[in-house]
């Protein structure tokens, strides 16, 4: 509930508005200002014209493919995460003991963080780790498994760290849909499959899009896993590695800022595309009944 803004000519100043000031000021100073600074910096290269950083990026062989490399990791990981989170969260929508246990168990990987997962994977998924031994023991796979220090390692780690987050987010959206709507649909002849397709899915579409975007942002920013679990020189040279190298190994902060801006921009395109798709669906309230 919000108060109407006063339209009278001498509207009294609402002291509550002051409460936002610290947070807003902080954001502007510590986030927007450096960001703009970086943007400006990126047009100020060490040598060359104002677009030199960007042209350098797109012409260097170990720089511009990083976009595609990162997308090759981030998009499948996000699709897997969201794609599996949806049906599982749908099954979990009824409040039960299962729901509490599973949510708790799934919250654990979120807290482990990327570095621990990377270290764990090196030990467990490594060529001499338990998984390899297990497969060999049961003669399920005779060769040595190559799941670390390559593309698959990074992908797996993205799924491990991204799935719980996507799951919890989708679960929150699903439980926000009043279950009486599905009941009403069933009295009108909708079997469970129709209930999902006709009622839940359209109402979930906005939330799913949001979840996809957030999960994608997380996956696209992959950094420590790509270094520890991948092969940062080659197949898993993601764009954040390129930015980091420019900043801390070549000390070219201008180029680093440029790369960071490109990274943000690519991500923005994808997010905008997904949100644009979402506008094809319904965007109103999700409770049924008295408006």
């Amino acid at each position, binding site marked *: 509930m919000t108060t109407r803004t006063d339209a009278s000519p001498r509207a009294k100043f609402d002291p509550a508005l002051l409460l936002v000031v610290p947070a807003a000021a902080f954001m502007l100073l510590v986030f927007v200002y450096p960001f703009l600074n970086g943007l400006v910096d990126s047009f100020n290269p060490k040598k060359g014209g104002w677009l030199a950083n960007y042209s350098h990026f797109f012409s260097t062989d170990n720089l511009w493919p990083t976009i595609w490399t990162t997308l090759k990791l981030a998009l499948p990981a996000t699709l897997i995460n969201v794609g599996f989170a949806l049906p599982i969260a749908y099954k979990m929508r009824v409040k039960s003991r299962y729901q509490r246990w599973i949510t708790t168990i799934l919250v654990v990987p979120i807290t482990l963080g990327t570095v621990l997962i990377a270290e764990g994977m090196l030990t467990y998924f490594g060529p001499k780790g338990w998984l390899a031994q297990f497969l060999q023991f049961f003669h399920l796979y005779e060769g040595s498994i190559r799941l670390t220090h390559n593309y698959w390692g990074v992908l797996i780690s993205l799924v491990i760290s991204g799935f719980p987050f996507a799951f919890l987010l989708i679960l929150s959206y699903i439980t926000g849909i*009043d279950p*009486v*709507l599905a*009941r*009403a*649909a*069933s*009295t*009108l*002849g*909708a*079997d469970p499959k*129709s209930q999902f397709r*006709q*009622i839940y899915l*359209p*109402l979930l579409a906005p939330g799913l899009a949001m979840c996809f975007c957030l999960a994608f942002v997380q996956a696209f920013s992959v950094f420590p896993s790509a270094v520890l679990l991948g092969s940062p020189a080659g197949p898993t040279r993601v764009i954040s590695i390129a930015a980091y190298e420019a900043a801390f190994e070549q000390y070219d902060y201008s180029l680093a800022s440029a790369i960071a801006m490109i990274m943000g921009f690519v991500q923005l395109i994808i997010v905008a595309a997904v949100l644009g798709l979402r506008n094809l669906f*319904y965007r*109103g*309230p*999700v*409770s*049924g*009944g*008295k*408006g």
Partner: protein
Amino acid sequence: MKHDFSDLRLDRVTRRFAGAGGHAFAALNELTLTVKRGEFICLLGPSGCGKSTALNCIAGLMQLSGGSIWLDEQRIDTLPPEKRGFGMVFQNYALFPHMTVAKNIGFGLRMRGVRAAEIAPRVAHALKLVQLTGQEHKLPGQLSGGQQQRVAIARAIVIEPPLVLMDEPLSNLDAKLRIETRAEIRRIHKELDRATIYVTHDQDEALSLADRIVVMKDGVVQQIAPPHQVYAQPANLHVARFMGYRNVLELDVVREEGDRVELKGSDIVLTGVRMQPLNGARAALAIRPDEIVVGEGPGGLNTVSARVENVEYGGRDSLLDVVTQSGMLLHVRGPVTTALGDTVRVHVPIERALVYPLD
């Protein structure tokens, strides 16, 4: 799934829940009822009496713990709700917020595979029936409460179900709208010529709408009877209290003669009609406030003196709280000229003083 049926039979329908202490309690206990085609049945009772549970069991939204439900000779309690083909109006309407009015109403028809060309005229007809023509393209969020409720009704009847279930559909409307919509519901029921089961806690609604009323308490049926009978001859003390018999006096039994019972308190003697077998030295006497007459009774029988302690002006008459010398309180409807502190003589006709065993 039949469209023409002759009766719906509930046979000892029971539904248990796990209670707070861990042991099960029966929210619905052995409800047995036969609903004939064309009937309007009201399930009436206070919160927690099991009426909504009964409705949900009939709709298939809840599994039975015991008993069975039959539509003519077909057993239906084993069917999921989408296969039973009943129409249901939910208390909060449950309109699909992402669909227009037309799509909401047409949903049931779509689910049953009715051809699109046939859906449109049927939806239009349903809209006309609830007097909402012209609102087809609005979203539920853009409608008023009364309009949403009518869309919910249209959605339930457009599929031409053998049975329409209504769960307290009027409870969220204001008083004026409630009375208007009540008449609408009755009219639609007559036009459809199917059967309606209507859940409410409001006895005025039940009295005005129902062909038969099922009064429930704590999951157990108290009385199944037409409205005038529930009103004038409540089967037990609970039903009497619920139907407005505000005066319930606990008195000593003096003697019984046939169905007449003579009771006395410390300063009054009253005779009433026994409704159930008595079980002890004391009994309860139930009287409606509007059936206590101000004035001397025939031959001075069943008359008491009392002092007016409170007056509530009611336009046509006043609701009076009167107290006898021994402190017994009666609610009486008396002339508007009665004043605080007046002493009045009131009497009750023997046939309208109902005697029940104490519970």
